[in-house]
């Protein structure tokens, strides 16, 4: 396996006058799970379709496991894909479906059947292997789609919204499968999703796209420390010290204070700029104000994502 399993250089795709992907450049290593984030229309699906040769780039180039984009057939042998809106023939059984796709990747009948059996077992679908796909739940179809993406033992696996519409148990199982693909098979996984908790949970690296461009890339920690800034805090002080606390806070620049609901002892603080909340806490302690609690918000991937994209459609992280 090549050192870099996926490399995209200034990848651009235009549809008429609209630029869907604009100079996307990144690399990914084997065993890495790379989260692809961005608002709707940011270019995530188009990027995946370019890298899987379903669409042809307007400019730029890429390679998969060292195979250049000029050899799309060879690239298709090395990638596995769960498309965003994958359809499944209703009357086919799970086993037939996987066997057919294995055949399309050049395997013999017996080998295709063996691969289908193995993948059905790995995805926990062996009991429903002979059932028509019309009887599969959404979660089962997603797992079958992941199995289909694995029939050719790919170097890079692209999963476009694999947990969309799944219940928590289904999401957990799919994420377990994603981890296994990277850890056990040594494949690179490109995971496109709107669920940021998933990214924080499984991804080694994150790429945030906006209007077709890479806004930021790095590990979750790198992105949150570079982009997210603690801009909100909830302060609780004894009722007798609320006035003193307000006086201290009023002396700090760029600070806005609001009482939290019906509790006058709880103050919600927002701060503009990138100074963070440390100076606030320092000032309170220096003034001998008793701080009962001081909860800082704005240090998670969710906050970094919002700061970069302003997109409010992402799933709120669950505490």
């Amino acid at each position, binding site marked *: 396996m090549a050192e870099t399993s996926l490399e995209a250089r200034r990848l651009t795709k235009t549809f008429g006058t609209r630029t869907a992907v604009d100079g996307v450049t990144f690399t990914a290593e084997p065993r890495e799970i790379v989260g692809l984030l961005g608002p709707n229309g940011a270019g995530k699906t188009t990027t995946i379709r370019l890298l899987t040769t379903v669409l042809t780039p307007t400019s730029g180039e890429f390679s998969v496991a060292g195979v250049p984009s000029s050899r799309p057939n060879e690239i298709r042998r090395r990638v596995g894909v769960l498309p965003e809106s*994958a359809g499944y023939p209703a009357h086919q059984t799970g086993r037939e479906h996987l066997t057919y796709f294995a055949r399309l990747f050049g395997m013999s009948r017996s080998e295709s059947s063996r691969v289908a059996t193995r993948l059905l077992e790995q995805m926990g679908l062996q009991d429903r292997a002979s059932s028509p796909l019309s009887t599969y739940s959404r979660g089962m179809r997603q797992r079958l789609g992941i199995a289909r993406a694995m029939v050719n033992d790919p170097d890079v696996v692209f999963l476009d919204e694999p947990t969309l519409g799944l219940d928590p148990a289904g999401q957990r199982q799919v994420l377990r499968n994603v981890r296994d693909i990277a850890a056990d098979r040594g494949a690179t996984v490109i995971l496109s999703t709107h669920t940021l908790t998933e990214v924080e949970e499984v991804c080694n690296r994150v790429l945030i796209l906006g209007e077709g461009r890479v806004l930021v890339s790095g590990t979750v920690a790198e992105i949150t420390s570079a982009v997210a800034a603690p801009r909100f805090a909830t302060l609780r002080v004894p009722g007798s010290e609320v006035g003193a606390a307000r006086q201290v806070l009023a002396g700090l620049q760029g600070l806005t204070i609001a009482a939290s609901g019906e509790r006058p002892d709880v103050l919600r603080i927002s701060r503009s700029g990138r100074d963070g909340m440390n100076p606030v806490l320092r000032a309170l302690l220096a003034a001998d104000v008793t701080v009962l609690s001081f909860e800082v918000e704005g240090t998670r991937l969710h906050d970094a994502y919002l700061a970069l994209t302003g997109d409010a459609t992402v799933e709120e992280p669950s505490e």
Partner: protein
Amino acid sequence: MTTLVNGEIDKTATGRPQSRGQGDWAAVAGQESRDLWLSGRGPLLLFAFSVLLSVFTYLAATNRAINFLEQREAVDQTLQIAVAVGVLVTLLVSADAISGERERGTLEGLLLTPVSRRAIVLGKLIAALTLWFATFVVSIPYIWVLGRGVSIVRSALLLGLGVGTLLAVGLAALGLLISALSGSNKVSLAISFFLLLAVFAPSQLPGGLPKGWFGDVLGKINPVGSGLHYSTAVLVNGHGWTRDLEYLISPLVLAVLAGGGLLILSERIVRLNPGGER
């Protein structure tokens, strides 16, 4: 071809099982045919076809006088219906083959495999043609019943198979081209249906086509009308098989142009977005 070494796939230098090349279209054709026949679409169309042919054969058998020439005409009329309706359903199935898969979300999975677009359309073309061959097989007993005693059953079946297959190949390929280029499945089916009406209707006009050179040219450039005219000339008028061969030119040209065009253009037109990348 993939071989097994010590029970494992013998991978090539690329580390992947290689495509079987010509075998790819066979895998696509096999699965597409299973999809057509096991999903119930094929059997339903075949049932509708046999009901239609039964009604027509009954009318032809009960209305004809017992004389030699009219029995030949009855066979010819039944054959014409069998061929026309057979190629109609073949055209409609092929018109759904790409645009329908696009709408059902199954095309992207197929495009993500290393199978060439050419192999995909060839497989789909062959699968659509299984419907034509099935309708032809269903029509055999009808032709046999109507043609007993006038020694034209064999000729009628050969003509039906030859002319019908030529038309089915041409129209199925045309249906696939339309399907690949259409913005939606409804549009593809509507265009294909009206196309077939346009080529089939003139031959059914009262009094037939206009007489004279214009009518002659019109008759010869219409592949369906021209092919059916050829079978009538042989079966009813008693012409030799080689006498009216010029009437087979347009069905042949259609099959070559549509089939060839489909195979040549397939890499460019079989796309996730209809009609190319926009």
